[in-house]
């Protein structure tokens, strides 16, 4: 189990697989550069990301805002109901626009930042500790709370398991999302207690209902100060009586509870299975899962050594793993712009696309996160992918009707957004950037080059024939025709696979 991939199997194909899964893919040049390194060095170039300098600027509003929040609270308190509602609505609009900016900020880090693996881990943790703005927005300055959680996942991306659980549990957005901040000893709220065992650390069947109620008691006192937008511990909320959780008895706190959770052998199995599934695209066999769990526990529950072992292992490069996962919508969008070397659509368009495809960042469907895999593909989302491909390739959103846009943008303001989208032209694919004049002039070379860049594989014979028939119908290939050819390749089942 988990033996290193033999040296002779480290090549362009396996390097492509690594960059696709550990990051968000790239150009043929990127894959070549990676495959020219030793396998270990290639992995280190992604996973030891701390060494890579980064100069991202945080959003201007990414800080607690005591004064503004207090002023707002006072104003709302003193206003008549109509004005109070107007003020709250205005705050909601402000936060909604910031969330949009935040989505763009994060997508840009994934698509253009120097640390794609770190961002892939952030995406994993976001789906794991799935927290949604749809509830957090009830708090003032909510965009900051979502940004702060995102930064937490970035800071601890490959850190220690218990530390992640505790910090994620005490994170303001999480405290609000799972109601923990309001839990008090008289009536402990079970939401976080239950989900932390069921969905974050152990899985169903590895704890009892008594463990849930006892853990809820232990967690009382973890709370949140809306005015300061920070965690606080409230001793007057805490139940200091004796509890028994997962076999441990004492005056347990929230930290004690999570430490006891991580002491369960199941805690390592649970998280390593989920990580393997996220990166390899399928659940590990029990034996592989056990081996992965041992790597985690033998390395002090640090994730970085685990990731290196995974990316080095033969199992990760098995035939049943390579090109046998469905691209997530984020992978599809970010990966497409990377391989086409074209700009990300502006945040409100990217955001609408991702929402339509089923992966609204900062708004997962529920606390379980996105199911992933084949659940990304329905008749509806597949056609959406084929149509959104035109948006990316042409750099315009003219494909989207106002009606469609309204749906994708969440039902409101669709008309206005669609009109705006009609006017936007972000460049799309710059043909000379991705194809040589020779490739553009020779239809055979063109088909090969498109397959190489877009699929890292080939189309079936009949699909290739369809593409050639289309190209043959043109005497001279204009850039617009080549862009259509790119979109056609993106409108195949093959393109949805990574």
């Amino acid at each position: 189990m988990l033996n290193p991939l033999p040296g002779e199997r480290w090549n362009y194909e396996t390097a492509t697989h690594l960059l696709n899964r550990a990051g968000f893919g790239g150009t043929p040049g990127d894959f070549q550069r990676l495959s020219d390194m030793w396998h270990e060095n290639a992995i280190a170039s992604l996973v030891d990301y701390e060494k890579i300098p980064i100069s991202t600027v945080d959003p201007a509003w990414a800080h607690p805002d005591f004064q503004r929040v207090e002023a707002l609270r006072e104003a709302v308190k003193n206003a008549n109901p109509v004005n109070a509602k107007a003020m709250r609505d205005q705050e909601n609009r402000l936060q909604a626009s910031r969330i949009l900016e935040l989505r763009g900020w994060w997508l840009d880090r994934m698509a253009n930042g120097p640390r794609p693996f770190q961002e892939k881990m952030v995406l994993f943790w976001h789906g794991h500790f799935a927290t949604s703005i749809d509830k957090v927005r009830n708090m003032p300055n909510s965009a900051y709370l979502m940004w702060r959680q995102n930064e937490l996942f970035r800071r601890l991306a490959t850190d220690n398991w218990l530390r992640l659980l505790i910090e994620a549990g005490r994170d303001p957005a999480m405290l609000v999302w799972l109601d923990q901040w309001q839990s008090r000893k008289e009536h402990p709220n079970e939401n976080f207690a239950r989900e932390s065992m069921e969905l974050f650390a152990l899985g169903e069947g590895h704890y009892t209902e008594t463990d849930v109620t006892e853990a809820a008691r232990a967690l009382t006192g973890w709370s949140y100060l809306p005015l300061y937008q920070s965690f606080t511990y409230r001793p007057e909320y805490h139940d200091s009586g004796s509890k028994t959780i997962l076999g441990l008895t004492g005056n347990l706190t929230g930290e004690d509870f999570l430490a006891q959770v991580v002491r369960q052998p199941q805690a390592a199995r649970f998280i390593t299975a989920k990580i393997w599934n996220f990166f390899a695209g399928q659940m590990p066999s029990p034996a592989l899962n056990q081996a992965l769990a041992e790597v985690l526990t033998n390395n002090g529950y640090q994730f970085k050594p685990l990731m290196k072992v995974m990316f080095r292992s033969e199992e990760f490069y098995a035939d049943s793993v390579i090109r046998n996962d469905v691209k997530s919508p984020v992978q599809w969008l970010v990966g497409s712009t990377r391989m086409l070397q074209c700009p990300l659509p502006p945040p409100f368009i990217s955001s609408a696309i991702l929402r339509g495809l089923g992966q609204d960042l900062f708004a997962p469907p529920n606390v379980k996160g996105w199911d992933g895999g084949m659940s990304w593909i329905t008749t509806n989302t597949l056609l959406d992918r084929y149509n959104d491909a035109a948006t990316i390739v042409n750099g315009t959103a003219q494909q989207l009707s106002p009606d469609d846009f309204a749906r994708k943008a969440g039902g409101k303001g669709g008309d206005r957004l669609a009109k705006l989208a009609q006017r936007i032209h972000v460049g799309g694919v710059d043909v000379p950037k991705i194809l040589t004049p020779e490739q553009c002039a020779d239809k055979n070379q063109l088909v090969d080059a498109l397959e190489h860049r877009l699929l890292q594989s080939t189309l079936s014979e009949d699909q290739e024939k369809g593409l050639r028939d289309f190209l043959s119908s043109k005497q001279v290939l204009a850039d617009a025709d080549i862009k259509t050819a790119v979109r056609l390749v993106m409108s195949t089942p093959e393109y949805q696979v990574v």
Partner: protein
Amino acid sequence: MKNEITLQTRREFLRSTILGSALSWTVPAFLANTIASLQSEAADSSTQIVTGTDNTILVVLQMAGGNDGLNTVVPYSSDYYHRARPTIGQTANSVLKLNGDIGFHGAMTGFKSLYDSGNLAVVQGVGYPNPNRSHFRSTEIWQTASDSDQVEKYGWIGRYFDSCCAGADPTVGVVVGNQLPQSFYAPKPTGVCFNNPANYRFLANQQTEAAYQEMNGTDMGGSGDMTGGGSGGGDGQSVASNSGDSIGMLAAAQPMTGGRVEDFIERTALDAQMSSDKVREIASRVQNQATYPTSQLGNSLKLVAKLIGGGLPTRIYYVSQGGYDTHTQQAARQKQLLADLGDSTKAFVDDLKAQGNMQRVLVMTFSEFGRRVAENANAGTDHGAAAPVFIVGNKVRAGLLGRYPSLAPDDLFEGDIKFNVDFRSVYAGVLENWLKTKSAPILGRQFPPLQIV
């Protein structure tokens, strides 16, 4: 016509063999014919022919998040109820009384009117043994009809399609939404998903579309009968995807089939292409004849009414309404949701009556669990167990079915009411009395079918 048969056969071929993708896109005619004849010989006697004009139709309505049944069908005369719910309890004055003890939540005027007109059955205290209080696990149990200590991958609707509708048009199952619910999962999954018919298509100029169809193997059947409007078609109605709820549409998904994911995507692409023209054509042609609330559920049911009116050959539609996970400040939220539920369903019934299709349609609601009898400190309720199921139709056994579970503290289990009716008895009743098929092969064993029609 001949071409269409070839296409149909090819699709069946892809569905029915794991080798489907290994073959080239163009299936030689002699081979297709052989497969077609083999398949008709092997056809199971339980196979149901779906025409779209005379079969019965089931609409499954998911109330996602765990609806508080006690504040929906309210035991307003019970002291136990009022003691457990000092803050959020519904009073005798606020409920819509069904009898001297029980009433609907005051916001459910739509349901009250359906109840009074004999179109609504309330199945009281529906649940299952050893209830699970996790959203995901309990939803999975409802979706797969499994026992609570058994994990089943495939869904009860998927198994119905598998055993009764093999080879049917992919629109035999329609999900209004983005995601296939687990109840549709099957070794060979059947059913299509869409939100907005107007854009349920490959949007491109003619030449690009032709190339796309050639590349995706769907040009053989031709799209000569394409009658749907372009992107301007439809009536501007759209259905928002998941509304802003901490628990939206709950679907637990793992790969449904073994093998390469590409095969699964190919099949989905083919289903999308085959259903797209028809769905758009119906949605742009058929007019609604009732006024619906402008909610996600209202829009979903509006679309379903059109598709029924237009004769889409569908046996099961699936719609969902999210937001029932009311841990805090439940009153305002639940009121809004229940009003929407009642009003949307009432409009749907009115619409179908105006169409003359109501006698063919049955609506069944479900929620993954009810909530604890005692309210919590945040004027909300936590995850509980049994809850009512609603069944709407022309021929339902209207009224209160079963009996209201006891709220006496001694009768509770871990703070929850005990179920009286196993949800699989409700499913068995729907399968046997409404969809007219044997329930045991679909539900794994024979449950006493609840007589609902």
